[in-house]
């Protein structure tokens, strides 16, 4: 094969360009403990990712202000997952290989966490995430027990829905699920818990995202005459479904996850349509001193109440627990030694503490139990937590919390 002059020049140019890449040297603090903040700043997780990243920075600042953990300061390297597995894998590779982080915090969607966890396992470092997929609890994803979930599993959400439906005295529930792992996880968890209580689900449908109308799916559900419809849905599709349901004039109640049944839904549809809808969310550990500290930091960074972003509270706890585990493991501990201390600093039997500074002092006198901003943060054998849930009702356009549900 003969090269023309044009081709030769082109390949020379490319080679020169490629040669520049490795020169992108980085300055790094020696001796600091490096943490990767891998959050969904853009994409579907965008509404939460910014807050999460800022709270990881703020919590690290609080740890450093208290003199660091295990004799080391925390240094944060932030990256965006774009809420996409492939972008997240490259970002995680960069954090692990270039920035040499010793923990990755704050992946959000299940697809991203499932794609990143093989990399953190291979590097032998912990991954703290807020994803719902049950697969993240067990091998192969969590074979090294380095994955910790700060969010309720979809299954637990479903159980909370079932508790609320029972408490409200519903007899004939039906389910509608958005076709992804989280949507189906919610309604399947509900169906499992509901049938275990001896109930029966009269109809169920799984629908495709981004349709202009859901009338066919809705009609199938309404034909079964349910007294309540439980959804695993998002804001955009819920808006369309509720509008079409209101036009049919059928009487039925709704139980909807709070990431869909939120003030924006009320604004889009008007108070008449959404009257009486039950909105369910896992709730932060409100009223706890840890939550107050988080809320103050959130107000300062974002200028809004920390109540609006449960994932930011989880991100705050991620840094705090990690720092406490580092402190407990002592100076110079490696990732596996720190990992071994996670349950020692977060689970019961120990002095209850609500901040890093408090925990650092209490660790000198024995065991501690960090009660977090997002939940009381006790990890089970799979590294999962069980937060509390709340049922809120929409009345006259206002979303008011009425009671809490503990699983």
């Amino acid at each position, binding site marked *: 094969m003969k090269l023309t002059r044009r081709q030769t020049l082109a390949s020379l140019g490319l080679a020169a360009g490629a040669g520049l890449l490795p020169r992108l040297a980085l300055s790094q603090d020696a001796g600091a403990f490096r943490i990767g903040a891998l959050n969904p700043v853009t994409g579907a997780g965008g509404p939460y990712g910014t807050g999460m990243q800022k709270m990881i920075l703020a919590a690290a600042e609080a740890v450093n202000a208290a003199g660091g953990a295990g004799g080391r300061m925390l240094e944060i390297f932030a990256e965006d997952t774009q809420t996409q597995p492939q972008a997240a894998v490259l970002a995680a590779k960069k954090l692990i290989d270039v920035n040499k982080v010793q923990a990755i915090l704050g992946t959000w969607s299940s697809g991203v966490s*499932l794609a990143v966890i093989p990399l953190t396992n291979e590097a032998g470092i912990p991954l703290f995430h807020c994803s719902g997929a049950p697969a993240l609890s067990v091998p192969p994803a969590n074979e090294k027990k380095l994955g910790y979930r700060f969010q309720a599993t979809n299954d637990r959400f479903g159980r909370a829905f079932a508790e609320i439906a029972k408490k409200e005295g519903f007899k004939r529930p039906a389910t509608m699920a958005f076709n992804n792992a989280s949507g189906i996880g919610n309604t399947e968890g509900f169906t499992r818990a509901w049938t275990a209580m001896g109930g029966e689900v009269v109809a169920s449908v799984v629908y495709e995202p981004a349709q202009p109308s859901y009338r066919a799916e809705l009609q199938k559900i309404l034909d079964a005459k349910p007294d309540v419809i439980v959804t695993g849905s998002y804001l955009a599709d819920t808006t369309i479904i509720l509008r079409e349901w209101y036009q049919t004039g059928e009487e039925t109640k709704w139980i909807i996850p709070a990431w869909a049944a939120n003030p924006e839904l009320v604004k889009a549809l008007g108070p008449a349509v959404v009257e009486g809808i039950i909105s369910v969310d896992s709730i932060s550990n409100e009223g706890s001193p840890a939550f107050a500290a988080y809320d103050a930091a959130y107000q300062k960074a974002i200028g809004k109440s920390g109540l609006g972003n449960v994932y930011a509270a989880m991100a705050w706890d991620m840094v705090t627990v990690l720092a406490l585990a580092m402190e407990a493991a002592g100076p110079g501990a490696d990732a596996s030694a720190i990992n071994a201390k996670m349950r020692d600093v977060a689970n019961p039997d120990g002095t209850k503490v609500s901040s890093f500074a408090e925990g650092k002092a209490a660790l000198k006198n024995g065991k501690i139990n960090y009660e977090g901003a997002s939940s009381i943060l006790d990890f089970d054998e799979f590294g999962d937590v069980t937060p509390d849930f709340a049922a809120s009702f929409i009345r006259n356009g206002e979303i008011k919390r009425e009671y809490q549900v503990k699983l």
Partner: protein
Amino acid sequence: MDAYLIAIGTIAGIYLLLALGLNLQFGLTGLINFGHVGFFCVGAYTSAILSTKGVPIPLSLAAAAVLAMLAAWPLGIISIRLREDYFAIVTLGFSEVVRLIVTSEGWLTNGVQGIAGIPRIFRDGAGEAQAVLMLGLTLAFCFIAILAMMRIVRSPFGRMIEAIRDNEEAVRSLGKEPAGFKMQVLLLGSMLAGLSGALYAHYIGYISPDQFIPFVTFQVWMAIIMGGVGRISGTIAGVLILMFFLEGSRFLRDFAPFIPEVSMASIRLGVIGLALILFTIYRPQGLMGDFTKR
């Protein structure tokens, strides 16, 4: 740093295979294929399902390429005679159908939960050595594909498909039927996409239907448009530019520390968008574009 560069290189290689297939279809033959990701998806799922069931990986890779090719065949039969813009719509529809089938047939594909724990191609030895081998394999496939493309361009077949691109009516008036050639090109391009999908599945280790959205197709389109349509060097350059923008912007912060972490993500997307617009204004032929034609 090295391991990260190896990772970028591997992903770039996977994209290059995809882009070479599309360049053959669009750049050389003029087939506007907006459903390239569909074949990528077929390849990824084929190899993932087979290898998790214990089929040796060389076989599952081959099966992925063949099945992606077979998937293109019925599509070709019904749509290859359509005018180019209609063909674009049909292929876009095809890729969405593939995604919906993969989403719905949970017994086979584990539905929206996706397939986790897909075995790596190289499992022995240290992580670094595995990564280098994977990069080597990907680049070897790219190299073979590039050599094949060069042969095709110089062959009578290559002249025929370029003639189809430039003036289909003229080809017909010379007594040649374009449909058969277009079909062969569609099958070849899909085979490359299927192989690329299989490599992707084994490299990332986890696939789910939401990774195979039309956006992937358009990223590949972006690459070949920036690099220069119809040129093999342009395809390579385009993929490198795309990776440089997507990944290089991560390092922008090391030179501009005054930009807060959170703004960075948005700036990255802005920079890519700006680059695309500048390319279309000042270099519509792409970086390696052919200035002697068109």
